[in-house]
């Protein structure tokens, strides 16, 4: 599902960085803040800004955006406010994808309970990256290039179409590296569960329509594979 619009709640250092990264990706983008000082700062940074308070009934969102193609990022300063914001949004918009920031594990669990689709626990992420940088510097560099840099090597998720030649085959029937010069890291098998499983775990996955393959490879190779699979567009 690709979204047309996005909202970032808050304008602290985290929110600012999120806004800078995602704003160019969406047709309409806005920042919602709670204070006048934040509003002025966001405006000065060149973003479209609106004021809100936590007791909002969110008519504001319904008026400006189409909730069915909207994604929101809750990045307020305090975890408690973020939880309240998440639960408040979820009470109105049942299907809205909500990505929330949390300081620690405890808050992350609360955000999940409040209805966030994805929670990014900042401390955990920072701790992971610090240990990885020191223990596995090459892994960090390679993953960073794959994920964030404009390199030819990409990570992509490809949804298997109904009429694809892959349907009915097992994941391990195909030598992905040899035949397509891509590596399949994981698969989301809708018949087994909604979450992904790593191919390295050695499960004998039977590929069904709508399964999602998470592949790493050069852009051209991924395109070639997608084409062979009958996919029109893949998420890169």
């Amino acid at each position, binding site marked *: 599902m690709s979204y047309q619009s996005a909202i970032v709640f808050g304008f602290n*250092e*985290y929110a*600012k*960085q*999120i*806004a800078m*990264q*995602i704003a160019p*990706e969406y047709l309409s983008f806005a920042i919602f803040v709670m204070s006048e000082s934040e509003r002025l700062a966001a405006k000065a940074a060149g973003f479209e800004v609106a004021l809100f308070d936590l007791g909002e009934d969110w008519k504001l969102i319904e008026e400006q955006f189409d909730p069915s193609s909207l*994604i929101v*990022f809750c990045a307020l300063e305090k975890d408690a406010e973020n939880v309240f914001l998440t639960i408040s949004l979820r009470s109105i918009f049942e299907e809205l*994808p909500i*990505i929330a920031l949390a*300081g*620690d594990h405890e808050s992350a669990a609360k955000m999940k309970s409040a209805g966030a689709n*994805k929670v*990014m626990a*900042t*401390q*955990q*992420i*920072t*701790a*992971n*990256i*610090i*240990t*990885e*940088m*020191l*223990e*596995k510097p*090459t*892994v960090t*560099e*390679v*993953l960073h290039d794959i*994920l*964030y840099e404009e390199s030819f*090597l990409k*990570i992509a*998720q490809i949804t298997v179409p109904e009429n694809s030649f892959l349907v009915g085959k097992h994941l391990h029937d195909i030598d992905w*590296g040899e035949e397509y*010069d891509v*590596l399949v*890291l*994981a698969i*989301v098998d809708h018949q087994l569960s909604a979450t*992904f499983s*790593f*191919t*390295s*775990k*050695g499960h004998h996955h039977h590929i069904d329509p709508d399964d*999602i393959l*998470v592949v*790493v*490879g050069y852009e051209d190779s991924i395109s070639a594979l997608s084409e062979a699979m009958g996919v029109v567009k893949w*998420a*890169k």
Partner: protein
Amino acid sequence: MISRWIVGIAFFLHASPRYRHIKKFFYNLLENPNYPYKKFFDYTMMVLIAISVYILIRHVKHEVNQDWLFFNNYVISFIFLIEYLLRFWVYSDNSKVIIEQYEHDLFLQRPFKLWNVLHNIFMTKMSFVFSLPAIIDLLAIMPFFHEMRLLRVFILFRVFKLFRYAKSLQQFVSILSSKKFEILTLGVFATVIIVVSSVLIYVMEANNPDSPINTLFEAVYWSVVTIFTVGYGDFVPVTTEGRTVGMAIIVAGIAVISFATSIVVSAFTEKLDEIKEDKMIDDVSKFKQFYLICGYGPLSAQVAHRFMKDGKQVVILENNHKKVAEAQKEGLVALTCDPASLHSYHALRIDFDTQVIAAILLEESDVLNVYTALTIRELSKSVQMLSILLHQENRRKLSLAGINEIVYTQELIGLMSKEVSGRPVAFEVIHALRSENSGVFIEEIVLDSIMSEQFFETSKLSMFHKRLIMLGIYKQSSQSFFFNPSNTLVIEAGDVAIVVGTRTLIDEFKALVRRKKRL
């Protein structure tokens, strides 16, 4: 003339690298607890003491081989004598005292006063001779004159020498010495009670023919046995007056014992934190390699736990007592000291170049992290440093302070947000690999010459093929990453393979890729 001669010798010795080297060696061996070879010397001395005491005990009822007696009376005593003389020598630096006095007098244009210097030297050396450990040392040498039977008892003083070699015994003495005043008060109190009660019991009992207490010594003996609540019962008062005194002494005895117990307990309680800290510093100085985290907070705790999960040792330095206590409660090695102070590192005896894998700066402000980084850089130019960055505008300052890696979480979260909204599943997959909670790991294997030769052959084994994902090879020579490499790629020692798989499979692959060559 003599003065000039003595000053000349002093200058010669002071300038002689050989003399200074030898003196420093003996100083380290005898007095420096951080000298790595001191423990061997200490253990040797402890063994000699044990042999000495064993021979003394054995000699009471059995014949002891003449060789052993010779060894005990002459060899051990001689070793102890040498040790005593060496300690006497290294206790102070005479040449330095002479030179300082000479230069001082020269500066003030006064004649050099030799007698003043000799007096100073004599007084310094006497302070050694009359120190308790030196007296014990001297008495321990006494059995040298073994013909004097009484002097054999002085062998027991060799046991007291253990205080010199066992750190825990030294600690015990230092703890008790912090309560000198209380112990003195107790001593005075107990002495007064003993004297008064001895005299009283003697007066009450000595003239009674039925009483076993007939002499003043017996009265003192009874008092001591009673006041310290032992009460053998071999001497007991028989008169009513004597028994009344006895009752009073028993009550006083309880007071003495309680007082003594409370002194020892309170001394240990007060010093407990210090003892623990000392122990921890000792442990840290023995760590072969560890990550040093400067500053403690929730992030530090997470980082430390992750390293510990991988079997790495972590030491945390934090200025705030409460935070240190929190870290210790979490099972982490944390020390209360300022990570930005040079003094802290000297006190902790941390060797950055050999012990510290990397210093991780996680203070709550960029200012503190820069300050700490500069302190560490002063101690080591090469140690790897990583710091978190709290405000983007300070990035360059952190780089200038010598920090090798900078983590700006906010930017990272921004990049991840883009990822999570565009490719949520791919993001989840990478996040799961990084967090290492899914049972599947992304690992780098540094290839040595054996591994590089056998790499492709092993990776094609059915056990690994399709289950262990060979993401690619990072070539050190070209500093480039080769994704999904074919076996035409020439792998050299030092290149890094990046693989994705379960822990068991990765470990098995590592073992096999090494083993194959040997077969």
